[in-house]
């Protein structure tokens, strides 16, 4: 089916692989709604409890849903469309800070889309895409805050690390090791979510086709 409701045969044999069928659109909408729901319900609760790694956990859920989406709708742009819809749904939830989560959502979708478009739809690319998307959750504040406050924020970060390492008696190089360990932890969580999403989508396809 193409965008005008005709199948490929009816459009004179012209292949239009990027056109999404009604069912594809419904899959994208439903998974986007689930992602937005998890951002709203779980995100609000984790934010209120001020728990560490809450961004990583939310991104892991998002990765799971994005991999499921690409596995069910094997067309370029499906994950990005899902991300844009979730970001717009976030706009409608007025009452909080929307700029930062919106950028995060679109960037995670973009990274996942790039990984799965360039590398093809497979378990390996869902793992790589998951890693990239979850690593973004760690990098995100360091990108958005300089955007919001200007590049002086990076110098402030640098000075805070120096002052903190002096105060705690730790070498600045060790702090970099700690930061790298956090990045790796995020990457591992993203990889697990990607593989879990791939496994789930395989099972879901079998169950749905019954």
């Amino acid at each position, binding site marked *: 089916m193409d965008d005008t409701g005709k199948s490929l045969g009816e459009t004179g044999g012209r292949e239009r692989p990027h056109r999404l069928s*009604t069912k594809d659109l419904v899959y994208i909408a439903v998974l986007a709604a*689930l992602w937005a729901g998890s951002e709203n319900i779980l995100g609000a609760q984790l934010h209120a409890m001020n728990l560490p790694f809450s961004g990583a956990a939310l991104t892991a859920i998002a990765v799971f849903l994005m991999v499921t989406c690409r596995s069910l709708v094997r067309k370029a742009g499906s994950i990005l469309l899902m991300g844009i819809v979730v970001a717009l749904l976030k706009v409608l939830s007025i009452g909080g800070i929307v700029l930062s989560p919106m950028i995060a959502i679109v960037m995670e979708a973009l990274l996942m889309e790039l990984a799965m478009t360039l590398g093809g739809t497979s378990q390996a690319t869902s793992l790589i895409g998951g890693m990239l998307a979850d690593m973004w959750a760690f990098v995100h504040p360091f990108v958005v805050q300089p955007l919001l406050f200007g590049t002086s924020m990076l110098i402030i970060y640098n000075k805070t690390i120096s002052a903190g390492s002096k105060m705690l008696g730790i070498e600045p190089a060790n702090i970099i090791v700690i930061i790298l360990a956090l990045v790796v932890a995020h990457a591992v969580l993203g990889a697990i979510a990607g593989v879990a999403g791939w496994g789930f989508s395989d099972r879901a396809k079998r169950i749905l086709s019954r």
Partner: protein
Amino acid sequence: MGILRQSQTNTEPLGVYGAVTLLAGALLLAIALNSILLLIPMAYVAALCLFFSRGSFRDLKQLVMLVPAVIVVSTLLWQEEYNGPSPISGFASFPFVSGFFVGVEMSARAIVIVLAVSAFVRTVKVTELTRLLESVSRSKSFSFVFGLAFNIRPYLERISRDTFNAIKMRGGFRLRNLATSTRYLLSSTTLNALAKCQDISYAAEARAFRSATNIADSALGGCPTPSVTDFVVLIATVAVVILSFAFKA
């Protein structure tokens, strides 16, 4: 202060083009300008919010904790001389003063961006934004996906709450089985949601979704039409950008 007390958010209609222009202009100026020149985008965004989105001033409360923290940290940690214009740089060689100016500059930039984003979110109509996105992406399906996601969200939230309660009543979500319970919750909710997709797509096609989209598209003529207010905002933004860069040069 009277501005902040008003409950009315949109005093004048601002179309999607005006909102996009306001956001783009404010972001460009906030990123490109520094020091005392940041007063220009601040005055520009504040003036536009005053006319079109007075409720945006209320969103500045999200910076109430962040701005003092940034000013205090930069005052204490900044050691270099501040590179501001001459009247300020005279004081900037004193210890802590340069850091204070840097903190104020960073805060001013944050205020401009938060005001602009808030004004965009409050003034833009989602229907116009989706139509603009559809015409830019040349896809006729975006509003369908967005509308369906928006309408189905409460239903899916109910499914996930019911699943969560069911697992919890069976002894789930304790420390020893937290991972398994989370996996069950996620897979069960997603599978339940996906099971509805077939019905939804049949229902959409039964309601002639594809042909309805084509008729609506030809009737609406693609892009939303810019209003006079949008043109005024566009001209004002271009003037402010040119003026700002002229001052900077």
